[in-house]
């Protein structure tokens, strides 16, 4: 569906008209990300991050396909083949750094995209499906990133694989066999490396497919906007192209500047030195940490140092870590406030800021060693994380008195420019 006033695709060139009759692909593109998609006129720069995530996936696909031409997924030579890429392959160092830092930047823009959705209520009706599909993409990204990190077969790769597959070992009764099944052995070895490579190559294409569903689901109600007020008429929208292609293009330029700055001047800043040591099953690095984008979840995993009743601490941590993400699938039904945008929700706004701080604290603790005071801080922060979604949001959405909403997007825009 689109708004009735959307521009209609009318190819002028005979070749395009011929193509439109046989395979209306240009029409699909025109209606999806061209002049045929009407978008609220008031989107701010936080709405850039969807397109930026897509761009980051594109970078990962291109660099990844090239790296796979030079990489060998065999436990005996994998580490050496990565060094071969770094030292011998023409421009190999750049491609590998682009891929490693590209993963981090992919997560940066996706986290901003998620928090944009959280603040402006983009997960609420009628966009629940957009939110749910987005979470599926997020889970797929985490699986892909984890398996990709194993491929260089350094110390962090090996021990990361051992610890993360060990999470499944925490499941009662079937956990041990599941872990063995996942690894194809009793410890990470050639079998695990090969299957991780196979899946690491596959999953980005699955992500691309789910992104198509994500955009499809988005285009049924159309994009949300900073006021959270529905589009009422043609005066509230502008065509995606050229207005937002230009705005996204500018954002993309800024993104690429930051990305290239990191890539060329601090390519190892977000990595771990231990991963430049070849995997050694007999020696555990003193301080195992995942990549920074997993830190908040890793902190929740480690927050459980005590058993509750008959449930061992190890299992509790695993349950809590998975629950912290699965919880988000229920968000559209936990926050019952009909007002979408945080701009008009004074109480929600404050708690939103607290949540951001809380996640940053969790992230910091997840990267710190497993000792006091970080354990206690992560316990408190993990408790607050769950309280935010399960207790605070439902109560706030009941008690809060929202500010008066503008009658339309246009009214909000004109009122703002009138003040300026």
């Amino acid at each position, binding site marked *: 569906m689109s708004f009735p006033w959307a521009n209609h695709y009318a190819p002028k060139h005979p070749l395009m008209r011929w193509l439109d009759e046989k395979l209306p692909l240009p029409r699909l593109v025109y209606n999806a990300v061209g002049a045929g998609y009407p978008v609220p006129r008031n989107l701010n720069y936080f709405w850039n991050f969807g397109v930026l995530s897509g761009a980051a996936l594109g970078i990962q696909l291109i660099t990844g396909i090239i790296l796979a031409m030079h990489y060998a997924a065999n436990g005996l030579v994998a580490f050496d083949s990565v060094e071969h890429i770094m030292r011998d392959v023409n421009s190999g160092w750049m491609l590998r750094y682009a891929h490693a830092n590209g993963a981090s930047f992919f997560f940066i823009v996706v986290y901003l995209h998620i928090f944009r959705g959280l603040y402006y209520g983009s997960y609420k009706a009628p966009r629940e499906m957009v939110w749910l599909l987005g979470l599926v993409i997020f889970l797929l990204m985490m699986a892909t990133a984890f398996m990709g990190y194993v491929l260089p077969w350094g110390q962090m790769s090996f021990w990361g694989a051992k610890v993360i597959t060990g999470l499944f070992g925490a499941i009662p009764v079937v956990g041990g066999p599941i872990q063995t099944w996942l690894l194809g052995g009793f410890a990470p070895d050639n*079998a695990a490396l090969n299957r991780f490579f196979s899946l690491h190559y596959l999953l980005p294409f699955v992500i691309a497919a789910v992104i198509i569903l994500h955009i499809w689901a988005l285009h049924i109600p159309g994009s949300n906007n900073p006021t959270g007020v529905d589009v009422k008429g043609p005066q509230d929208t502008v065509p995606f192209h050229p207005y937002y292609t230009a705005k996204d293009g500018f954002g993309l330029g800024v993104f690429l500047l930051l990305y290239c700055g990191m890539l060329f001047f601090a390519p190892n800043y977000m990595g771990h030195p231990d991963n430049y040591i070849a995997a050694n099953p007999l020696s555990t690095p003193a301080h195992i940490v995942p990549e920074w984008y997993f830190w908040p979840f890793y902190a929740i995993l480690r927050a459980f140092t005590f058993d509750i009743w008959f449930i061992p601490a190890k299992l509790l941590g695993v349950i809590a870590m998975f629950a912290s993400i699965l919880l988000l699938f229920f968000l559209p039904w936990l926050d019952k406030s009909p007002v979408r945008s945080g701009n008009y929700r004074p109480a929600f706004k404050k708690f939103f800021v607290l949540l951001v701080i809380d996640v940053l604290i969790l992230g910091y603790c997840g990267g710190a060693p497993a000792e006091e005071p970080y354990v206690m801080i992560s316990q408190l922060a993990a408790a607050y994380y769950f309280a935010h979604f399960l207790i605070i949001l439902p109560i706030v959405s009941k008690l809060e008195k929202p500010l008066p909403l503008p009658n339309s997007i246009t009214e909000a825009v004109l009122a703002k420019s009138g003040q300026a």
Partner: protein
Amino acid sequence: MATLEHSETPGEVAGDGVRRRDFINIAAVSFAGVGAATVLLPLINQMNPSADVLALASIEVDLAAIKEGQAIKTIFRKQPLFVRHLTAAEIAAADKVDAASLRDPQTLEQRTLAGKKQWLITMGVCTHLGCVPLGAGEGEVKGEFGGYFCPCHGSHYDTAARIRKGPAPKNLEVPVYKFASDTVVQVG
């Protein structure tokens, strides 16, 4: 049964409301389902350890060179194995503890072979998330209970390699082994 002369039309409803086509439908789809599930089995099972991984032979460890108070790290089934020659003091420390009070209640006797109490042979795999605990190598941290210490998430094991403090749920695993002679032990 219908014959050529009196054939029922495919969509015709018999007395009990069941069409002949319904039966064909259910039978065909059920068979296809069973077939698909059967094909799925090897697709899933291929991920289990392959024959060469399972065939890793048992190993023999020569104990003659391990002095009292020493420990060695070796490899058993691609995972570290700790062989430790306990001192009298370490045995006494392990025996002093009331096993029933432990998270994973076991005595030193249950974790060693009869008459060979000084030989503590365990996997070097932390039962929490699989890191290699410290304490077997020369000069490594042995933790608060003088056995092993896992640096990943801070699990402390005592001189019988029993979990005493930290997140690990179980004692370090004791593999199947037997003494081939007085100084050679066969693991696996």
